[in-house]
């Protein structure tokens, strides 16, 4: 096992012999060439770890040879030591500017050259270690990226398919996670009593952890809906479940609602979430007067003994509701202003009748308002029409 491969390039046979002798004795494999051109031919067959090259040589001089070696991706990592006479025209700085890794001036002692070679190989070993670690990191990153994109696809699968319909509600959504994967979730499903159950929630934080908790929130919600009851009971149970099963800083803001189509009434609980916009007869399009549903309450998951309150509002045929997470309205622009609820009310005062076009209109208008910054948090928007 050799300590490495050294290519000695010099037109003087004595120098090749002396360097070759010392290098072999020290345990290196030695390749010899008389000039740059010959050296390039040798390198086609065997790639050296280190090149010791004279500067002045016929056919292809050391500076040009160095430029060629350092110019090719496959050879540029070879450690290049330029050997030259100290005569001003070939200053050390000049040589290093050519891309050489080090310089030796003639005349030299063989021991000096050997010391340089030994230190060069220490550097080569370090470089190889860094390259190896880099490769490992790149592979790790690729794996993580692949896993994340798989998780993001799975999360998309947790959202209702759109356009959707449940007991007197027609809905669609726009979902824009900040990091490919996010902490927003919503769910609309038929309730046991023939009504519709609605949830939109935003888990604190971003990324994988928030996404995992958001999946739990959805599961807790749907389990509660299948047990019957209404938003108040759901909120208390979900708060308890979330408090017990998450870490101390993980919470969810949520809006939970139940629609009774017979009485055209929506019962709801606001749990720290932005209350939805209510647009009377909004599903018919045109100029309307939207308002924010009143209500406030604790986030889910803080303390299992906290109380929640239920409220109700009419939700008649032709009415529209806009559910959203705060990422939609809380982007700070360069002038430090936010769209806020007032801004969103303005945006929603005239929407297309078609829910898909209405959703696109809201996202596009808000995006333009925030320009050049689009959204920095997860954004979920649900347009829900009473039909």
């Amino acid at each position, binding site marked *: 096992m050799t300590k490495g491969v050294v290519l000695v390039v010099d037109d003087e046979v004595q120098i090749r012999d002396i360097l070759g002798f010392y290098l072999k004795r020290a345990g290196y494999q030695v390749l010899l060439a008389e000039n740059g051109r010959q050296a390039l031919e040798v390198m086609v067959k065997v790639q050296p770890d280190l090149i010791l090259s004279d500067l002045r040589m016929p056919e292809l001089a050391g500076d040009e040879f160095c430029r060629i070696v350092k110019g090719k991706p496959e050879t540029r990592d070879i450690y290049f030591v330029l050997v030259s006479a100290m005569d001003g025209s070939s200053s050390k700085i000049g040589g290093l500017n050519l891309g050489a890794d080090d310089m030796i001036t003639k005349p030299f002692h063989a021991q000096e050259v050997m010391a340089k070679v030994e230190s060069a190989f220490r550097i080569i070993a370090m470089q190889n270690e860094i390259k190896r670690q880099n490769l490992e990191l790149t592979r790790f990153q690729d794996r993580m990226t692949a896993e994340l994109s798989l998780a993001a696809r799975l999360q998309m699968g947790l959202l209702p398919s759109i356009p959707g319909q449940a007991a007197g509600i027609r809905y669609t959504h726009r979902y824009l996670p900040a990091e490919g994967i996010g902490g927003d979730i919503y769910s609309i499903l038929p309730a046991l009593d023939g009504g519709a159950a609605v949830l939109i929630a*935003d*888990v*604190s*934080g*971003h990324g994988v952890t928030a996404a995992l908790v958001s999946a739990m929130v959805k599961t807790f919600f749907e389990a509660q809906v299948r047990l019957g009851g209404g938003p108040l009971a759901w909120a208390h149970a979900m708060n308890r479940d979330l408090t017990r099963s998450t870490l*101390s*800083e*993980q*919470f969810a*803001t949520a809006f939970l609602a139940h629609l009774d189509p017979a009485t055209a009434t929506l019962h709801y609980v606001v749990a*720290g979430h*932005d209350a939805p916009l209510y647009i009377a007869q909004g599903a018919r399009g045109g100029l309307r007067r939207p308002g924010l549903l009143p209500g*406030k*309450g*604790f*986030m889910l998951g*803080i*303390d299992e003994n*906290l109380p929640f309150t239920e409220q109700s509002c009419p939700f008649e045929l032709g009415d529209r509701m806009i559910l959203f997470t*705060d990422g939609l309205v*809380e982007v*700070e622009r360069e002038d430090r202003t936010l769209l806020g609820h007032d801004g969103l009310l303005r945006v929603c005062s005239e929407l297309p009748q078609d829910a898909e076009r209405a959703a696109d209109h809201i996202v596009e208008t808000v995006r333009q308002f925030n320009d050049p910054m689009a959204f920095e*948090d997860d954004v979920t928007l649900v347009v829900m029409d009473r039909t």
Partner: protein
Amino acid sequence: MLNIQTRQEGNSSVVTIQGKVNFEVTAQLRDVIRDTVTTHLPKLLVINLEGVNFIDSSGLGLLVAARNSVDKNNGKLHLCGLPPQVKKTFDQTNLTNYFSIFATEQDALRGA
């Protein structure tokens, strides 16, 4: 940028926060609060939010966790100096009724 300062006032610790409290800075803030609580075991922890212009849900989460950890040591957490924007967030999430909130640091320290 977030600026955090801590000081002791007798048995009380005061943490003063300035800037935007969001997901990116909660780790830094969490360390400071934890160090303060474990080092000084304060009877009263005052968090002054006067210079905070924005707080998101992770920031709120951190404050709730701070209250829980102070509770465990039989201490109290008082918040003070909530700017209007932050006050709005607290109102919306009902946290105004969860925390003891004071107008000024003096009030918070007196517990009045």
